[in-house]
């Protein structure tokens, strides 16, 4: 299912500051699309808008051409599933009960789960390798296991779009790789359009097919990882000096951060104005989304939010 975000603006509350200033993004079926950007750049908010949980003040999100705003929560949940950044688990549901909740959008009021639903839940648990934990309480699982259970719950919804908010947060490196390989396989093999907010640039570079980089609520860059993860973009957007190399085993970028003084970075960023201006004249990215207005990106002209701290 093709997910298309067109020029979305969003602010929390009627009078709250705008968090997204016209973001566009397109994700195709069977691809893993990464969303990266510094804290506060609007990554998670963008994910909420794509999922239909937050309604944009202008712009639109469409799934195969259908506007998500026109769907009821139940209808949306039959198509889009999500795994939040850190779902606090309070009640000791068993793993099977938890995964079974994913069947809810397909069940009528008061209907109980059928053998088919049990089979789908079981399939989802096997897909993420948690079937052997079925009887365990979710409160007794490790973070890595819990994350796989929540992904299984999302899969039980039989989604065509899967949204993941920092799926590897708080996980050790072995679980990070495990989760990312699972997510990549879901996208490539099951054809689920997968959009993941990631904070680890190397995981994003290693596993994503496309990456959108946000900066202060605008798209700073988009495209394949090697186009987005460049030393210039990292300096502009994150304010860190980095060396971008190649992974030895794959033709994919690997990021080595050298120093991270934002002040230093910002000052250097103004030196990048030429580069931005140059980029502003460029054609659209391969995804069809435009980079943000360069004047804002580079700290010149009308600026807002974090950029003003300078």
């Amino acid at each position, binding site marked *: 299912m093709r997910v298309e975000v067109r020029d979305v603006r969003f602010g929390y*509350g*009627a009078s709250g500051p705008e968090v997204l200033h016209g973001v566009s993004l397109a994700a195709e079926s069977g691809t893993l699309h990464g969303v990266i950007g510094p804290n506060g750049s609007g990554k998670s908010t963008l994910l*909420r808008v794509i*999922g239909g*949980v937050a309604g944009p003040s202008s712009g639109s999100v469409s799934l195969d051409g259908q506007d998500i705003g026109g769907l*009821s*929560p*139940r*209808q*949306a*949940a*039959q198509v*889009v*599933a*999500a795994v*939040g950044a850190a*779902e*606090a*688990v*309070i*009640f*000791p*549901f*068993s793993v099977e*009960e*938890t995964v079974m*909740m*994913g069947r*809810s*959008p397909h*069940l009528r*009021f*008061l209907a109980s789960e059928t053998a088919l639903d049990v089979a789908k839940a079981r399939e989802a648990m096997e897909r993420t390798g948690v079937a052997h934990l079925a009887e365990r309480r979710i409160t007794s699982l490790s973070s890595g296991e819990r994350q796989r259970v929540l992904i299984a*719950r*999302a899969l039980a*919804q039989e989604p065509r779009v899967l*949204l993941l908010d920092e799926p590897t947060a708080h996980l050790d490196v072995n679980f990070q790789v495990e989760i990312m390989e699972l997510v990549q396989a879901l996208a490539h093999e099951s054809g689920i359009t997968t959009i993941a907010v990631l904070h680890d640039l190397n995981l994003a570079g290693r596993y994503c097919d496309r990456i959108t980089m946000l900066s202060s609520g605008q798209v700073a860059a988009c495209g394949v990882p090697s186009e987005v993860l460049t030393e210039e973009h990292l300096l502009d957007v994150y304010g860190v000096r980095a060396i971008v190399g190649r992974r030895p085993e794959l033709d994919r970028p690997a990021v080595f951060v050298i120093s991270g003084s934002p002040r230093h970075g910002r000052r250097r960023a103004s030196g990048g104005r030429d580069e931005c201006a140059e980029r502003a004249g460029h054609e659209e990215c391969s995804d069809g989304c435009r980079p943000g207005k360069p004047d804002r990106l580079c700290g010149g002209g009308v600026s807002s939010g974090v950029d003003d701290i300078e």
Partner: protein
Amino acid sequence: MPRSRANRTRITLLVAAMLAVVIWAASAGTAGIPTSLALRIIVSRIPVVGRALAAWLESWLRLWSGHGPGPMPIDQSVLESAEIIVLEVRLPRIVLGLLVGAGLAATGASFQGLFRNPLADPYIIGASSGAALGASIGILSAGRVGLAALSLSSPSSYIPIFAFIGAVITVLFVYALSTVDGHMPTDTFLLAGVVVGSFVWALVSFLMVTAGEDLPKVVMWLMGSLSAKSWAHVRMTAPYVLAGTAVLTALGRDFNLAACGEESARYMGLDVERFKKVVIALGSLITAAAVSSSGLIGFVGLVVPHIARMMIGPDHRSLIPVSALGGAVFMVAADTLSRVIIPPREVPVGVITAMAGAPFFFYLLRLRKRG
């Protein structure tokens, strides 16, 4: 699944416990009515099958007591007074106890799931303080002003109406305070409930200072009691508790989603804002109906859901009805204890619920920690 089979056994045991407690409550007390007689009187009043059931029961009792055929040795006047005591004094009190216990516990389980907060209870959103204010105003205005309309009826018939209105108005006020742009953040709602509750309690305290000789009545009402309740109280409370608990139970799956967090629930297809409104409305009405007929009985709505969760797990589809069942049993048992513990005086039932419930809860907590 093994868990569901174990749960079925536990639910059966709970139903049996409820019947046993009802029989005990109907026979225990100063009047000294034998259990078998109390049982027969109650059974004979069950519609349609009652008469047959009572006859069947009697034949069993004969067999059991070794009494041959012929009339049982019961004096007719004893039977009549026993019937009046059981049917007009004890039974309404028992039924009201079942309703109040069930309603408070079901609401407590619902609110704990909705607010994802183990400290939530039916009183957290201001219904209790509002009912207290309404009841105080009712008691005082009757004593002071002697309103013509009120003085015609007995206090026990109009105070519930004052309390009910007070509870509903207070919850509506809390709701209005915490709703912004059609959204009601749960934390804001809880905070508003606590703050409005404090304010309303201050008003109640103020009224109590000015109450004068009516003060004991207000205090007794606040302590909560099922004493001297009639079928009128039952009729007032039953529709809210029965319908409300049924709907809350029907929403069990939605509660499970909501218990995962609002955003997760929304991604699984739950219209969270609408769900919150429905649950708060139902919970408030149940609480208002329970509190207005029997005063502030604490503990049941807070702890019974926890005990139920330990027994059958967190699935709200069974947690809410089992909480209701447990609350009903607990309430009637506590109320009967309150009658028999220092006869002929009655201890306020709220005192018993806390005194008996807290140690039991800690026992279960320790048991589970060790298990």
